[in-house]
C-alpha cells in the first residue's frame, strides 16, 4: 500500500538504470542518511558514538572491502585483518614522517599501500581457487602479522611494540588523539564510509563490477567473453584491500587511538568474513547488516539482563551472549542461507503487495 511503484514512470534510460529506481527507496536512503548525520550526533551520548556507531561503520567498510573480493569476484580471502593492519601501519608511518599533511589524506593514502600489498598476495589467485586460495591468503595474514611485530621500524621502535596515534588537527579542530571529540571523529568516519560506499556502488553497477561478477559466476566463460582474468582478479584484490586498508587506518586513528599487532590477527579476518556471510555475499547492504548483527547485537544483548534486573555475573552474561549470537547465526542461515540482505529483499517484495498478496 505504502510501498508501491505504481505510477512511477521512467522517461529516460538514466532514471531507469538508477541505483534506487523506486521513489520510496530514495526516501528511505535519505532518512537513513539524515538519521546518521543529524539525529545520532544530536541525541547519542559518547558511548553510542564511540563504542557502537564508529566501530559499526569501520567494520562495515571492511566488510564492503571483503565483499568486493569474496562476494562479487568470488575469491575467498582470509587476509582481511592483515590488510587492515597494512592500512593502519602505513597511515601511522606516513603521519609520523610527514606530520604536517592533512590526516584524512594519509588515511586515504594508506589504502594504496594496502592495495599494493593485496595485489601481491592476490597473484596466486590466477592458478588456485576456492579453499586453496583461502590458504594462500592465510599465508598473507600470518606473514603480515609477523612483520607488524618483528619490524620495529613499523612502530617507530616503541618499547611496547604498539602504535600510538598522535594528535592531529584539521582547520583548527582536533580530529585524532584522545582529545578529539567523539562527534568530530564520527563525522569523519561517517563521511568516508558514505563516500566509499557510494563509490563501491557505482563500481558494481559499471563495467568493472560486471567483469567481477562474470568471473565469479564462471571464470572460463568470462575469459571466453574477452575478460582478462589476471588483471581483473588483481584489480579485485587491490580495490578490496584498499577498502580494508582505509578501514584499518580509521579503526586505529579514529576509534582505538593506538593498537598492537594482535588487533589485526586471524580472528579479525574471520569476524569480517562472518559479517559478509551472514549479511549477504555480493551485497553492499549486506555488509552493513552483517556488521550490525555481529558487532552491535552482542553489545545490546549484554545490556539486556542488567536492565531487566536479572542479577548475573559479567562472565555469565558474556557466555549467554556468545550462545545467543551463535544460535541467531544458525537461525538466520537456516531461514535464509543467502544472508540478511536477501531477507530484506524478500521483505521488500512482500511489502510491495501488502495488504493484497494475490
Amino acid at each position, binding site marked *: 500500500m505504502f510501498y508501491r511503484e505504481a505510477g512511477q514512470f521512467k522517461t529516460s534510460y538514466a532514471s531507469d538504470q538508477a541505483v534506487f529506481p523506486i521513489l520510496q527507496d530514495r526516501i528511505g536512503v535519505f532518512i537513513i542518511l539524515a538519521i546518521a548525520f543529524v539525529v545520532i550526533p544530536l541525541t547519542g551520548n559518547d558511548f553510542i558514538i564511540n563504542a557502537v556507531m564508529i566501530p559499526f561503520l569501520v567494520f562495515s567498510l571492511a566488510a564492503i572491502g571483503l565483499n568486493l573480493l569474496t562476494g562479487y569476484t568470488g575469491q575467498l580471502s582470509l587476509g582481511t585483518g592483515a590488510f587492515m593492519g597494512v592500512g593502519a601501519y602505513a597511515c601511522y608511518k606516513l603521519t609520523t614522517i610527514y606530520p604536517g599533511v592533512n590526516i584524512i589524506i594519509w588515511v586515504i593514502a594508506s589504502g594504496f599501500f594496502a592495495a599494493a600489498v593485496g595485489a601481491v598476495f592476490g597473484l596466486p589467485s590466477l592458478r588456485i581457487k576456492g579453499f586453496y586460495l583461502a590458504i594462500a591468503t592465510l599465508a598473507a595474514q600470518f606473514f603480515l602479522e609477523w612483520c607488524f611485530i618483528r619490524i620495529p621500524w613499523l612502530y617507530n621502535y616503541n618499547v611496547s611494540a604498539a602504535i600510538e596515534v598522535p594528535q592531529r588537527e584539521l582547520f583548527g579542530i582536533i580530529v585524532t588523539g584522545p582529545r578529539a571529540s567523539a562527534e568530530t571523529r564520527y563525522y569523519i568516519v561517517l563521511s568516508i564510509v558514505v563516500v566509499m560506499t557510494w563509490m563501491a556502488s557505482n563500481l558494481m553497477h559499471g563495467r568493472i563490477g560486471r567483469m567481477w561478477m562474470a568471473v565469479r559466476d564462471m571464470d572460463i566463460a568470462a575469459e571466453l567473453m574477452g575478460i582478462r582474468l589476471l588483471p581483473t582478479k588483481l584489480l579485485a584484490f587491490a580495490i578490496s584491500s584498499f577498502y580494508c586498508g582505509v578501514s584499518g587506518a580509521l579503526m586505529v586513528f579514529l576509534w582505538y587511538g593506538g593498537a598492537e599487532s594482535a588487533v589485526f*590477527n586471524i580472528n579479525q579476518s574471520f569476524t569480517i568474513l562472518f559479517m559478509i556471510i551472514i549479511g549477504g555475499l555480493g551485497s553492499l547492504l549486506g555488509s552493513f547488516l552483517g556488521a550490525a548483527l555481529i558487532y552491535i547485537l552482542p553489545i545490546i544483548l549484554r545490556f539486556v539482563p542488567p536492565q531487566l534486573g536479572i542479577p548475573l555475573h559479567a562472565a555469565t552474561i558474556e557466555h549467554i551472549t556468545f550462545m545467543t549470537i551463535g544460535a541467531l547465526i544458525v537461525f538466520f542461515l537456516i531461514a535464509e542461507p543467502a544472508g540478511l540482505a536477501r531477507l530484506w529483499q524478500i521483505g521488500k517484495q512482500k511489502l510491495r503487495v501488502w495488504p493484497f498478496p494475490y
Partner: protein
Amino acid sequence: MKARQLFVGIACAGLVATAVFASKAEAQGIYVPLLTYRTGPYANSGIPIANGMHDYLTMLNERDGGIGGVKLNVEECETGYDTKKGVECWESLKGKNPAVVNPYSTGITLQIIPKAAVDKIPILSMAYGLSASAVGEKFPWIFNPPTTYWDGMSMIMRYIGGKEGGLDKLKGKTVGFIFLESGYGREPLPLLQQFAKDYGFTVKEYSVAGKEMQDQSAQWLAVRRDRPEWMIMWGWGAMNPTAIKRAAENGFTMDRFIGIWWSGSDDDGRGGGAAAKGYLALNINGLGSNYPAIQDIKKYVVDKGKSQVEKDKFAENFYNRGVYNSVLVAEAIRNAQKLSGKKVVVGEDVRRGLETLHITDARWKELGFPNFAAPITGVNCTDHNGHGPAYMTQWDGAKWVKVSDWIHPIKEKVRPLLQEAADEYATKTTGWPKRTEACDKAS
C-alpha cells in the same frame, strides 16, 4: 519470513535498544569498576585475580560498610583480555564517575592511557602496563606500583647473579628468554640486552605467539639446541603451564627456570605436574590464607556464598594478588577521602589519593596483612611506581614456597631507561599534555 513478523521483530529490537540506552544506571556509593576476564584463553590467569579483587572490596562492604562509611559499588566488566572489549568497557563506565580503573591487560592499558587524562579517571595498572608510565610528570593519571617489569628483570638478574657468584660469572654463557609475543612480553627485552652487553653473556629470544601458546614445541626444541644456562619467562594465560610442562619434558633444570610474577599462579605450577618441581617465579604478595584480613574475606564473603571462588582455590597465589590490588584501591580511596574531605570520591580525588599512596609495615599490619607485602613508600608525584622489591618463590610440586628474601631492583639501571622511554612517548605523541595537576604532600 512474513513481513509482519519482520516488522514486529524490528520494532521489538528498537524498543529494547531505546530502553537500554535511555536509562542510566543510578550509581550509589563509590563506583569501582573492575575490568576482568573470566572467559577466553587467558581465563586461567584472570579468574583468580578477578575473584581476589572482587572479594576484598566486597569484604570491606560487608565488614566495615564500605570505606569511610560509604559503600563501594563494585562492578565487573568482562573483557576476555580483548582490547576491543576493554575500550568498550571504558566507554560504558566513564560516565558513571569511576574512582579508579583496573584494566588488567597491558594491551587495554596502552589503549586507555591517552584517554585517562581527558576523562579524568586514574588508571591503576598494578605491576603491569607501560613501564614508562611510572614517570609521574609525564603520566599524572597512570599508576603502576609496586614495581615495573624492568625492575622485575633486574631482580631476576640479581637473583641469577647471587646463584652464580656474581653477574660477571655469566660471561660467555647463554641466557634464554621465552616470552608472549605482545607488548607485555617484549617490554623487558631492552633491559635484558643492556645487561647482556654489560656482563658479556648471550641472550637467546624465544617468542611465543598467542595462537601457539598451547604448543611451544618448536621453541623448546630450540632451547634444547641452544642449551642456555638460565631461562627467563614472561608468559600469561595458557602459555605458562605449557612452558613449564615443555621445560620438564625437555629435561631443562627446573631451578634454573625463572618466571616473572605473572607466570607464577598455582594453576601454572599444577599444569606442569610433579615435573614442575623446582620452577621459580617472582612474587610481590604473601602466600596462603594465614592473614587476618584474608580470614575476614573467608568469614564475610566466601562462607556466605558471596564469592565466585571455588573453595579449594581460595587464597591461592593469584587470588592474593587480586586482593593486593584491591588493598591499593581501598587505600587510595581512603587517602582521597582524607585529602578532599568528601565522602563519595571520584576519579580526580582518587588520583590524588594514589599519588600519596603510602603503606608502611605498620599500616600493612593494621590492615590485617602483617608481612603480606613490601612496604610501599616510594610513590610520589614524580614516581608513580615506587620500584619496590619482590621475592622468589619455588614450586614444590603442590604449592609455592618462599625461597628468598626481598630482592631489590637495580634502580640505577632501570630509572634512566624509564625516563628516556617516558620522554620519548611524550615527544612522539604530539600534543601530549603537560602536567597541570598539583602535587599533594603525603599524609
